[in-house]
C-alpha cells in the first residue's frame, strides 16, 4: 500500500494493469450484451423495452459506487493529504458524472414507453439528478482553485458532505411512493429478486464489466493527473524526455 502511494510506482503499476482491466471489461460487455439482447427472452409485461435494463441498472449502480469511491479517496485526501488520494478522488468525478448521465438518459428512454413520460419529479429520479449536480459541483469546485491541491481538498469535503444522498437514492423506491419500479436484484436476499435467471446473468456480467471499465478509466485518468501534478519531478522528466534534467550552469 505504501509502495503504491508513491507516484512513480503507481504510474507504472496502473499502466501495466489498465489494458488487462479494459480487455476483460470489453469481453464482459460482449458476453453480457449478447446474453441480454439476444439470448434473454422478452419480458411478459414490458416486451423488449426492458432490455434497457442491461445498461441502465449497471450504470445506476456505478453512479453510486463511484461516488462512494470518490468519498473514500476524498476522506484519505483530507486526513493524510496524500497526493495520490487527491488525484484519485478528483478523477472519479467525471467518470461518475458520465455514468449518472447515462443512467438518467437511459431511464428517460425507458420511462417514455412504460410510464408515458420522459421525466417525473419523483424521489428516485430527483435524487439521481441531485447526484449528477453533486458530481458537477465537485468538478466545478476543484477547477475553481488556482492551487490544485487545495482545490482537491475543498472538493473532497463537498464529496463527503454529499454522501448523505447515496442512501436517499438507494432507498427512495422504498421510502416514497414512486413511479420507478422497486429493487430488481436483492443481493442480501436473492430469493426476493424479481428477475428470471436468463435475464439476471447478463445483468450481473454487465455490472462486472462496468466496474472493470471504471477501474481502467480511473487508473488512466489518475496517471495523467499525477503526471501533470508532478511535472517538475525527476521521474516525469525521465519519462517524458528519456533523460534526467540537467542542473543549471555548466554541463559536466
Amino acid at each position, binding site marked *: 500500500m505504501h509502495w503504491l502511494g508513491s507516484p512513480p510506482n503507481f504510474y507504472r503499476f496502473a499502466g501495466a494493469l489498465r489494458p488487462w482491466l479494459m480487455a476483460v471489461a470489453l469481453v464482459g460487455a460482449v458476453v453480457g450484451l449478447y446474453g441480454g*439482447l*439476444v439470448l434473454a427472452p*422478452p419480458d411478459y409485461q414490458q*416486451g*423488449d*423495452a426492458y*432490455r*434497457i435494463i442491461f*445498461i*441502465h441498472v449497471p*450504470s445506476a449502480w456505478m453512479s453510486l459506487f463511484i461516488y462512494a469511491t470518490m468519498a473514500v479517496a476524498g476522506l484519505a485526501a483530507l486526513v493524510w493529504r496524500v497526493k495520490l488520494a487527491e488525484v484519485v478522488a478528483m478523477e472519479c468525478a*467525471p*467518470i461518475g458524472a*458520465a455514468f449518472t*448521465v*447515462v443512467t438518467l*438518459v*437511459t431511464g428517460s*428512454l*425507458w420511462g*417514455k*414507453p412504460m410510464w408515458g413520460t420522459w421525466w417525473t419529479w419523483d424521489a428516485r429520479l430527483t435524487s439521481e439528478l441531485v447526484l449528477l449536480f453533486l458530481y458537477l459541483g465537485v468538478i466545478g469546485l476543484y477547477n475553481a482553485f488556482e492551487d490544485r491541491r487545495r482545490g482537491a481538498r475543498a472538493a473532497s469535503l463537498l464529496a463527503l458532505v454529499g454522501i448523505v444522498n447515496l442512501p436517499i437514492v438507494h432507498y427512495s423506491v422504498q421510502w416514497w411512493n414512486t413511479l420507478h419500479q422497486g429493487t430488481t436484484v436483492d443481493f442480501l436476499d436473492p430469493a426476493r429478486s424479481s428477475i428470471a435467471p436468463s435475464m439476471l446473468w447478463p445483468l450481473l456480467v454487465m455490472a462486472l464489466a462496468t466496474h472493470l*471499465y471504471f477501474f481502467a*478509466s480511473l487508473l*488512466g*485518468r489518475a*496517471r*495523467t493527473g499525477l*503526471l*501533470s501534478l508532478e*511535472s517538475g519531478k525527476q521521474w*516525469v*522528466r525521465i519519462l*517524458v*524526455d528519456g533523460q534526467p*534534467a*540537467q542542473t*543549471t*550552469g*555548466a*554541463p559536466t
Partner: protein
Amino acid sequence: MAHWFAMGGYAVYVWPAYAVFFIVLAWDWFAPALRRRRLTRELRGRLARERTRNARAARAEVST
C-alpha cells in the same frame, strides 16, 4: 435479424439508449487520452526550452 432489430416495436427507445451508453463512455475513455497527449507535448517543450537556456548559459560562462 430485422425482427431482432425492431425490438418488438421498442427500437426507437432501446437503440438510442445503447447509443448514449457507448457514446458517453467513449468520451470518458478518449477525452483523457487527448489531455495526456497535450500534457506530454507541453512538458517536452518546456524541457527543451530549459535545455537550450542551460546550454546558452554554459556557453556564456566559457566565453567570459
